[in-house]
């Protein structure tokens, strides 16, 4: 089961919905890993929108699990890429060629949805008009508030900053601009006194 109900939190924490087909001239769908299941569910509601859809899919560690099933939806364009970073050039190009009437659907991990939402916002789409659905890993994209380095796929709290090595506490405080949660030094006053890391949401 790829769905996870996040507990209620502070206002800063993003809230995700369930993808629904909306009228539009073109449909841009960006998903990673189990996010493919949200696209398959979307197709079950209205397969017709895929005739004008461009799917950008990053399987991550799901490999070929979903690729054939996504292809079978017969989207107008279908791209499978190794990493989000590798797909960014394509996403920017698609958005720069797009017109009003484009619907954007994002599904999968928080890191993917946050970064893709940022690209769509930069292209002029209000964030509230971009649909999102969380699926799969609850790992987080974290920014160290001290060195500003980003650590991807953080699974424990606290964790070690992959750039400066500080021990960071995982906060729900989120930056839409950076598409990252904020990590704050956990042992600043008593260096070395670091709580035992626990897996997120365990």
């Amino acid at each position: 089961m790829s769905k996870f109900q996040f507990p209620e939190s502070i206002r800063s924490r993003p809230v995700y919905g369930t993808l629904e087909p909306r009228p539009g001239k073109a449909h841009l769908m960006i998903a990673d890993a189990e996010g493919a299941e949200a696209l398959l569910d979307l197709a079950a509601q209205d397969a017709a929108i895929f005739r004008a859809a461009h799917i950008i899919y990053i399987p991550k560690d799901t490999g070929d699990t979903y690729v054939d099933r996504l292809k079978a939806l017969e989207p107008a364009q279908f791209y499978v890429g190794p990493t989000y970073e590798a797909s960014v050039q394509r996403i920017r190009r698609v958005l720069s060629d797009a017109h009003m009437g484009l619907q954007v659907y994002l599904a999968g991990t928080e890191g993917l949805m946050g970064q893709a939402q940022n690209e769509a916002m930069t292209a002029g789409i209000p964030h509230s008009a971009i649909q999102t659905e969380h699926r799969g890993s609850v790992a987080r994209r974290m920014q160290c508030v001290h060195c500003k380095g980003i650590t991807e796929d953080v699974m424990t709290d606290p964790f070690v900053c992959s750039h400066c090595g500080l021990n960071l506490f995982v906060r729900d405080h989120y930056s839409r601009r950076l598409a990252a949660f904020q990590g704050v030094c956990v042992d600043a006053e008593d260096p070395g006194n670091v709580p035992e890391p626990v897996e997120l949401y365990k």
Partner: protein
Amino acid sequence: MSAAPQKAKAGAEKIEVEVSAIVPLNDLVTRFEFTRRDGLPFPPFSAGAHTVVEMNDDGRTRLNPYSLMSDPADSTKYAISVRRDDEGRGGSLFMHRKVKVGDTMTITYPVNLFPLDLRGRKHVFLAGGIGITPFMAMIAYLERMGGAWELHYACRSEALGTYVDELTSRHPNKVHVYYDDKKQAIALEDLLDGQPLGTHVYVCGPQGMIQWVHKTAAAHGWPDENVHSEEFLAPQPGKPFEVRLCKSDITIQVGEHESLLEAIERCGVEAPFLCRGGACGQCETDVVEADGEFIHRDHWLDDDDHASGKKIMPCVSRFVGKTLVLDR
């Protein structure tokens, strides 16, 4: 509505002005220009703002909102353009018939319920008739800022095409005019197709036009956030009714030709307002008790609020029934 309600109070701050020019533009529309009596510069306003003009019509106070259509960069004067409505409640007739150059009047500080979204990459204006007024200020602003815009302006006829000559001579490539009597119409679907991402559309005109634009844009996949509209409603006459104001502990009568808000004011009870046209939300009032039917006409409350019978916008909405008690 995007504007957040401010602290509820009875109207915006006021400015004493003198009528410095009256310019008839065609059979129906006249421009009124105001200068400040104290000689100070006018407060700056953002394009799309309106002012509420206070009219003393033989002892009866009329308060009508009008879009500011002068250049927002000009702090020496404010200008409004008023369409004469022979069937209306009399505010526009008062402006056309009674107001003379040199008269002193009171207007409010500008309030903007129809601002440009300055994040927009491009701004498409759709005007119907006198709905051109806020766009005059928006165009002046965007021309100065180098913003991308285009105007599609539907008028009844060439003779009633307010500001058409000025607009088409200054901006021949950006202004598109459509005359009803020549069976010309805005090709809205074609217009919405192919606009660059980040385009915002603004519509000011009759209610049918506003609904048509919202509906068509939604069907074409435009987010609500990119579609802006403004329509000031004039209060409609209706059967007289009785209202109890429980905080003030009085019972008042609302006449056929006055709004509930006007009746509350006439009885000396101070009630908050800004636009007096069902748009801004300032006059929202809680209903304590009601036995009868509401005639909701505002654009502020949502359908659930209207159905609940717990709230009313006294500037444009009325009531038919036995008892109405308001928390005012």
